């Protein structure tokens, strides 16, 4: 099993703690001066996203979590699992609702996402930073009013609801930033 010594600790490193995969958010070398040195780290659980604090004796080794990221194309949802495929090997992975989480509202078939795998199993999905989705429901647009500051809710083909400017209409395709959930622009077909 791969492991990391505390002197290799830095943010981004993946550790296996109490059987769960974690990523180091912050690492601090702590040496009160009268004794043993410690590394105090803030780590985020890659399954639950909960951030906790852990303290290790400096020089200790901690098991690495076998976590890696891979780009995959989203294929379809069968009602229980979301199916993805590695485009050059055609290898397929099925992710459940826990792994897909909030990403589900942005997933459009054939979009390329980043899947995080732990021991070969889907851990989480990052949707593309920008997605182009069709508006399936919103109040009628106010023609010509392209300068007004007002917004209205719009439901997208994937089920996500975003705030859009008043002039945008049902049936139009819009670009959304999935990191903030914000409308970016209309997409001309």
């Amino acid at each position: 099993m791969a492991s990391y010594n505390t002197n290799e600790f830095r943010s981004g490193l993946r550790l296996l703690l109490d059987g769960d995969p974690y990523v180091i958010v912050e690492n601090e070398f702590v040496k009160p001066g009268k004794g043993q040195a410690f590394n105090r780290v803030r780590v985020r659980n890659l399954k639950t996203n909960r951030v906790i604090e852990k303290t290790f004796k400096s020089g200790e080794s901690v098991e690495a979590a076998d976590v890696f990221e891979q780009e995959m194309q989203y294929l379809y949802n069968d009602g229980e699992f979301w199916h993805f495929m590695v485009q050059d090997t055609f290898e397929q992975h099925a992710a459940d609702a826990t792994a897909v989480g909030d990403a589900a509202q942005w997933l459009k078939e054939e979009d390329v996402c980043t899947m995080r795998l732990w021991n070969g199993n889907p851990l989480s999905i990052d949707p593309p930073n920008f997605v182009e989705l069709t508006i399936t429901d919103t109040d009628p647009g106010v023609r010509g009013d392209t300068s007004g500051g007002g917004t209205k809710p719009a439901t997208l083909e994937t089920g996500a609801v975003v705030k859009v400017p008043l002039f945008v209409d049902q049936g139009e395709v819009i670009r959304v930033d999935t990191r903030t959930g914000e409308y970016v622009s209309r997409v001309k077909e």
Partner: protein
Amino acid sequence: MTSAAASWAPTAPLAARRLRATVYAEIRAFFAEREVLEVETPILSRAGNTDPAIESFVTQDAGGPWFLRTSPEFPMKRLLVADGIAVYELGRVFRRGEAGRWHNPEFTMLEWYRPGFDDAALLDETIALAHRVAAGPGMMVPSVTRLSCDELFEGALGLADGCDASTATLNDALRSRGWYDETLDRRNAFDLLLAFAVRERSAPDELLSLHGFPPELAALARIEGGRARRFEVYAGGQELANGYDELTDAGELAARFAAENERRRRARQRQLPRDEHLLAAQAVGLPASAGVALGVDRLLAWIGGSRSLADVINFPGGRA
């Protein structure tokens, strides 16, 4: 912070270099007014620091190993024996394996010795110095909280008589708060719990001082009434200074060196040659005195509101 991406560039901004120059001038003025003499002592020594918690850098020539000083304490005490007057040194010290946000393997230490002072009087002077340099660049005079270790443990953790607590009690206190799961020996359990308690108790712009330590943490401080006469000063939760009411007894000093080397042996650390010059000087007679060492880089970081030593040290760690 300028934080230039290029690795040749300093990590600290020009403002930090100016602040350092100003603070050095303030420190020298502070001691000149109080008639404390600036001295210089060797950086390379044939003798080592036996403290098991501190690792020395070692270099070599035909005559054997040289140890880079981890503090100027030993030669400064020889000057105390020779002259009997107050002295200070502002210089670089070196500690192996200490690197991080608040540690750098080489750092600037201000150390001074006051014949005729006890630990309480020297703590007052340390706080006066911190106030003097902090007040310069237009900071509010920081408030000071003075606590004994027992009071800190009681107030921050609800743990009575922390200095006398059993190893199991200290480990339980760490475990129940989720701070540390495994079992430490008494010394390390106390030390780690103290570090967490200080963090609980500290405000960013506040000074906190601690006194009354357990006797096994005396290092080279006198032990009296079951407590080591040492003090520590924390600024914004980071340890800034560490002072002793100095142990003067030469026989007791030799015994503590031997005990430290024995702890090194058990931990499979290198045995270090004890400082025979210091032992000889203390046999002549170290005047009753108190001494303190203060981390200047951390002091600068605190005054400047920095989040890391890299904001005050031009070329830290990998850029040196």
